[in-house]
């Protein structure tokens, strides 16, 4: 029933009930060394520092941009893969006209589905290049729509990384009936400009 316990390469005892003073002092470190590698710890994480999301809709009478700075986001990287989540309240988009914003909120079922969220999964290595091709999954207006190979530009400034790009969304993608003004509907195209700044945590 004897056990061999080695500390720093040397055998200090043959009785398993005998633990040297040095070993006792090192117990917390030893236990942490045993445990830490198995933790489901991400390799790297980023948090969204600031952002501007802008949707654009076009009508024969005028064009409209709705802007939100209220998005929150996080990137978690592990084993070479990164998961990105960005979410913003639908009601946070401001087009400069409260009446239009309320119509937008109604048309997009914004009270029933109050958040628009974007999920991205991509290899961590992709963050090294200036252009990233992302496969997105957007949840909006009760619909989940994938967009493939959407190009985003990346610029690193100090600890901050700016990532920007345009998602080629359409109203039809999310089954949103085109809002109309004076019975003339807006165009189906609704590109969303995404400008984000991330910092590591």
């Amino acid at each position, binding site marked *: 029933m004897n*056990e*061999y*316990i*080695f*500390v720093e390469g040397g055998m200090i005892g043959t009785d*398993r*009930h*005998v*633990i040297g003073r040095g070993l006792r002092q090192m*117990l*917390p470190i*030893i*236990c*942490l060394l*045993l*445990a*830490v*590698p*198995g*933790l*489901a*710890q*991400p390799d790297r994480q980023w948090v969204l520092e600031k952002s501007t999301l802008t949707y654009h809709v076009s009508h024969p*009478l*005028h*064009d409209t941009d709705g802007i939100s700075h209220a998005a*929150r*986001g*996080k*990137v*978690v990287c*592990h*084993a070479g893969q990164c*998961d990105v*989540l960005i*979410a913003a*309240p639908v009601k946070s988009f*401001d087009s*400069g*006209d*409260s*009446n*239009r914003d*309320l*119509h937008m*909120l*109604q*048309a997009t*079922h*914004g*009270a*029933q*589905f*109050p*958040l628009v*969220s974007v*999920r991205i999964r991509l290899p961590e290595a992709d963050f090294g290049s200036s252009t990233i091709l992302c496969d997105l999954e957007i949840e909006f207006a009760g619909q989940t729509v994938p967009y493939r190979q959407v190009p985003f530009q990346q610029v690193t400034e100090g600890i901050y990384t700016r990532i920007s790009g345009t998602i080629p969304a359409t109203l039809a993608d999310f089954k949103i009936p085109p809002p109309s*003004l*004076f*019975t003339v509907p807006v165009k189906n195209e609704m590109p969303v400009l995404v400008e984000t700044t991330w910092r590591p945590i």
Partner: protein
Amino acid sequence: MTGEVTETQGPVFDLLRPDNFSESFEIACSESVEMLSATVSVSDMPLLGRKAMAAQTKDDTTVAPQEKPAKPSLLDLGIPPDQSQGNAEAQARLDKRSHMLKIHQTLGLITLIPMIATIFAGGSAGAHGSTSSRDLHGALGLVTAGMYITTASYAIRAPSVPGMEVRGPIRVHKALAWVHAAGMILTPILGAMARSQLDRGEKVHGIATAHSAVADVTVAAYAAAIGSVALKF
């Protein structure tokens, strides 16, 4: 075994079974870490005790694979569930509001037709006009007033959204509504006074002479109200 770098994974507390280590070691480890799993290199076996590692390797077949860190969730972003859950009642309110304002918009455009027609008919309903042309002008005015009231009622009765600050061109639209609403009350009153004076064979006089000017201002304010939501400025 020396030099082998294969790894085995499993719960730390399985390694700390009573027959593997002294009681003091177990207590110390239990107090020092509160972890559920560990990855242990075979090269660390001497430190742990071969029996413990053997037991651990045996258990590996039944141990769940190493957990990956969870994908970021809305909670990670600081968004509590109550903010991500929908409100059917609020959506119904928005739907009703939009529906009523669409009707308001459509009726408002239609109302513009009798309104302009009334202006044109008024040109031949003055002092030198016939009774029939005055009747036509009056009838068109009544239709306009009826449609105007109906149009306005949809905007007035549309449910408001609590906490929503009014911003943008809609403020101009609402301000102009006070102008054309006052005009829509004054214009028929002044028109009736003018008609009465003309029917008595009198020349239009007093406040009734403002009928035409008030009507013009009313139509201009009405058209501007439409333009305020149509054009970006």
